[in-house]
């Protein structure tokens, strides 16, 4: 079994798909402008490599139970590591390429997919992480718990995004059923996502805490000490 959230064509009707296409385009335009302010002329190479990282990570399968595996979506992970703007941009580009070259996720469902996985998941994850930043700065345990919650709630929020879209433009199923099905399924996916995200963020923070976007500005400034009596 393989768990993923890429919506296919025809899940929601054409007007709904078009409306969320507009949401996705506007969101991405904002992310693009903000990412440029974040990374200046480094934007293209850094975002390109982070997107390649997201792509590679989505190819890695994790065991969940014997016979079942899933892969990381990485929304909260990139939000914590490189910030929400660059993160959302990278996830959206990965989604576009997956849809056009790998037939993974419908072409007309790109708007809904980008809204759910690049906008909702990344920004919910980042919002949760930001709200818990005080705990994250305390130490490894705090950071791990923050990353877990960010990824878990980000996944749930993305699933809720789907429920809303299906309620607007899908047919044949009462809202209660969609809600129960998607929340149940994605609570499980969210736990997996949370565990992997927490361990990964912990590993990065242990080696290069200066690279973790969430912890930026929290390091003690470099203190220059000189031996007694030496000339300044």
């Amino acid at each position: 079994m393989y768990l993923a959230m890429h919506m296919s064509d025809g899940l929601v009707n054409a007007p709904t798909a078009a409306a969320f296409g507009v949401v996705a385009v506007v969101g991405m335009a904002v992310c693009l402008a903000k990412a440029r302010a974040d990374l200046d002329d480094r934007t293209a190479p850094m975002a390109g490599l982070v997107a390649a990282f997201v792509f590679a990570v989505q190819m890695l399968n994790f065991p969940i139970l014997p016979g079942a595996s899933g892969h990381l979506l990485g929304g909260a992970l990139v939000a914590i590591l490189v910030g929400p703007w660059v993160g959302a941009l990278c996830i959206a580009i990965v989604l576009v390429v997956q849809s056009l070259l790998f037939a993974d996720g419908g072409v007309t469902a790109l708007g809904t997919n980008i809204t759910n996985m690049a906008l909702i998941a990344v920004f919910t994850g980042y919002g949760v992480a930001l709200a818990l930043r005080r705990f994250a700065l305390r130490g490894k345990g705090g950071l791990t718990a923050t990353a877990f919650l960010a990824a878990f709630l980000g996944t749930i929020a993305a699933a809720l995004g789907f429920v809303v879209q299906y309620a607007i433009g899908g047919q044949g199923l009462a809202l209660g059923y969609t809600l129960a099905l998607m929340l149940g399924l994605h609570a499980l996916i969210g736990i997996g996502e949370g565990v992997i995200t927490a361990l990964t963020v912990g590993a990065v923070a242990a080696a290069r805490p200066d690279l973790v976007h969430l912890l930026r500005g929290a390091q003690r400034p470099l203190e220059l000490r000189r031996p007694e009596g030496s000339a300044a």
Partner: protein
Amino acid sequence: MGAGHSHPLFLDRPSPVHRLPPEVKLVAAFLGVLCVVATPPGQFAVFGGYLVLLASVWAVARIPPGWILRRSLIEAPFVVLAVLLPLVGEGERTEVLGMSLSVPGLLAGWNILVKGTLGVLTSLTLAATTPLRELLVGMQRLHAPAMVTTITTLMLRYVDVIAGEARRMRVARIARGHDPRFLWQAGATARGIGALFLRSYERGERVHLAMLSRGWTGAMPVLTAGRATAAQWSAGLAFPAVALGLLLSGWSIG
């Protein structure tokens, strides 16, 4: 893209479809799928028509139908939804093999399955006839923001490198006896992802410096000049035009 940067779904054939400019194919595929999505689920003959249309594109593109069909079996979790719909849907019910199924639910489930499948088949056709570099050219000519095209170019250029690194890390873990079966055994894999991120990020910093030393000004050179001719556009847009005809015929009957 240099040599060797091909994606697994590309099928190199000398065919008119392969030779069409990428921006034409992108637009045609998108409009075609849009017609499929807009079709009312009850129009079974129209969906058959779409399949015949796609099959004729495969014939022109010299793609064996079996090749496409084998790759269209992408498991989607939404198939669960399609199976669930007839069981829990509302409205009038019917007996099939002793099970009580909802008629609107059956129709909605069929709707998801048939449109999802036709969408995947169209995407596969696009992927099979369009190499990576062409896709980037197409994005550029369709006026995607320059920064997005540049990021995508760099991503596609380095994804094989990063994925190769991930593969080597996995082999190294397996060689040391790693055999995870449960989520709580995935610690080593997750720490590997952390290392992979650091390597990707640091590689990004080196790539940036290398680009600067080669005169990077913030914009990629235009990949290729030239635009699609009117004849190429009309050849490519014949696909969505037929799809639109099918859609309209479905509406006029239904």
